[in-house]
């Protein structure tokens, strides 16, 4: 990994090369949906999902990667954000607030839930915290499933539909717009919207990491007692990480609502929490770019397998031996195991995390 890394840092030293790189990356990201649309609109939709997962993973990265708190119920905050959006922009209550009002409300509601969960539980460590958060995630889902009586808040398992799409300056994200000879479908517009959000969340992550707050989180992860003895209020700092992670989850949830137009408790099952955590861990806990890579890979690989498993079997054996869905998850699991063996700190590990894993515990 030395060579490309050296090359990268060499490039970084030259500001012109850096800007050329930024422009190239930006241009390809801007052109991406049109290229993908040629292969089928489905791929644009999958890309949107990948960006959405990247947003979620970056939120969880603050909790798991920066502060070192294992959260197995993170999807609950996504659910809270999604339902907040759905309730405030759908015929369900016939409330139709604009997105710029709902997304912050969703973030605030999710944040409140984060604090409510965090306040009593953050004294717990490691495994215990993981189990409590896991329970919390399930509780939220079960509530969503059952809060249709006596007062119909969530509409139960049927979910909420006809959720308003986002409107920005008169442009409806629910339909296709023609501009400069190009057809911008709703999916493509959402792609750009998500991209802007992703950039914002990346900046927030990077700046937090390299700040007084980020250092305090690092200290807590390294040695909590020493951190406390240096005057860091570890409880507040952990709560802060929890609240921030939850807020990002809430925003991502709101976006999910707007894009899908329909949500139900089924979208917020435990597997989803595990998936987002897998993205963070696989990509490289604590490393923003690694986490994004993890999210993109774990969104795309299963989809690619979905489309390739059956044809490849046909080509090899003349017929489909194993159900595509089964072999897809099998390959996926195998890939995860191999990854953890070969690169336990993730694909793009954060420098500190890598060191932490490299040192045997008794040496610390």
């Amino acid at each position, binding site marked *: 990994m030395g060579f490309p890394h050296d090359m990268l840092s060499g490039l970084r030293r030259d500001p012109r090369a850096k800007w050329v790189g930024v422009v190239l990356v930006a241009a390809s990201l801007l052109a991406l949906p049109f290229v993908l649309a040629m292969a089928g609109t489905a791929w644009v939709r999958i890309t949107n999902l990948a960006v959405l997962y990247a947003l979620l993973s970056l939120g969880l990265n603050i909790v798991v990667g920066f502060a070192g708190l294992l959260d197995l119920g993170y999807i609950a905050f996504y659910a809270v954000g999604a339902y907040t959006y759905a309730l405030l922009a759908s015929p369900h209550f016939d409330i139709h607030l604009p997105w710029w009002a709902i997304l912050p409300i969703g973030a605030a509601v999710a944040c409140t839930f984060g604090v409510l969960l965090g306040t009593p539980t953050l004294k717990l460590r490691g495994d215990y915290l993981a189990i409590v958060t896991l329970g919390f995630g399930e509780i939220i889902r079960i509530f969503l499933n059952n809060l249709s009586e006596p007062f119909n808040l969530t509409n139960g398992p049927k979910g909420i539909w006809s959720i308003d799409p986002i409107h920005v300056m008169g442009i409806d994200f629910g339909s296709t717009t023609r501009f400069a000879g190009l057809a911008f479908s709703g999916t493509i517009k959402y792609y750009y919207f998500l991209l802007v959000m992703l950039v914002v969340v990346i900046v927030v992550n990077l700046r937090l990491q390299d700040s007084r*707050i980020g250092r305090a989180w690092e200290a807590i992860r390294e040695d909590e007692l020493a951190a406390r003895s240096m005057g860091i209020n570890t409880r507040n700092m952990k709560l802060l990480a929890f609240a921030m992670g939850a807020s990002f989850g809430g925003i991502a949830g709101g976006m999910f609502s707007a894009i899908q137009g329909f949500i139900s408790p089924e979208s917020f099952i435990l597997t989803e929490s595990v998936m987002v955590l897998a993205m963070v861990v696989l990509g490289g806990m604590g490393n923003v770019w690694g986490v994004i890579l993890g999210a993109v890979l774990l969104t795309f690989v299963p989809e690619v397998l979905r489309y390739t498993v059956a044809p490849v079997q046909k080509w090899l054996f003349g017929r489909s031996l194993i159900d595509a869905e089964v072999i897809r998850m099998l390959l996926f699991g195998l890939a995860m195991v191999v990854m953890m063996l070969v690169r336990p700190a993730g694909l793009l590990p954060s420098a500190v995390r890598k060191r932490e894993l490299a040192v045997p515990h008794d040496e610390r």
Partner: protein
Amino acid sequence: MSAEAPARRADAGTILEVEGLSKRFGGLVALSEVHFSIRRGEIYGLIGPNGAGKTTLFNVLTGIYRQDAGSIRFEGALLAHPTPDRIAALGIARTFQNIRLFANLSALENVMIGRHVRTHAGVVGAILRTRRTRAEEAAIERRARELLAYVGIEKRGNELARHLSYGDQRRLEIARSLATDPRLLALDEPAAGMNATEKLELRKLLGAIRADGTTLLIIEHDVRLVMGLCDRVLVLDYGRNIAEGEPRAIQRDPRVIEAYLGKAPERGAGA
């Protein structure tokens, strides 16, 4: 640092006052009615055989354990159920017997983390990178580098804490504690594992810290270091005060000799 030293040293009086401090772990009495007071600007030694309760006393003083009985007053104010972070904010910093650095962070980052309690940037400042936040960050780094230089490891700033030599790790831990601007610095066996040269340098460093206005409380096994450095010494044995006073007097105290060497079977056969 040295500019404000005279004012602080002139401020005589008691900085820490401990009365009737007791701490039990189940059936084990770790501390029993321990009492002492430390004057502002002195170097106060805490010695005693292994298991005498020195580190327990440190842990109670710094809020890691809660005492079963007794009171601690710091600068006249009672410390009621303090937490370690509150203690650090009040102005008592400590080091650990078995060094507890942030091993995978650089030496500089370790000291910068020490500045946390004296700085204020919050989430909004960090995200928006306001001018104030940037100025504070620059000040944190400047101060951290100053402190690395102060303890004599300025060239090690970018190395990982766990790659430093043992002596340098001890120094780094002191620098990190100093970063919290303590008025009382509590060191748990700062010379442990050091060779003669390192001990000599440590002694100079501790002298300088005191001269710059920080009161020191030191647990130390090296008798020569304690005797040469401390103004007064408290001897603990089985969690009790057995002697307190100037090093010279302590050295001749029969109870101290007995605690360390056992009771003399007959006259003159002891130390």
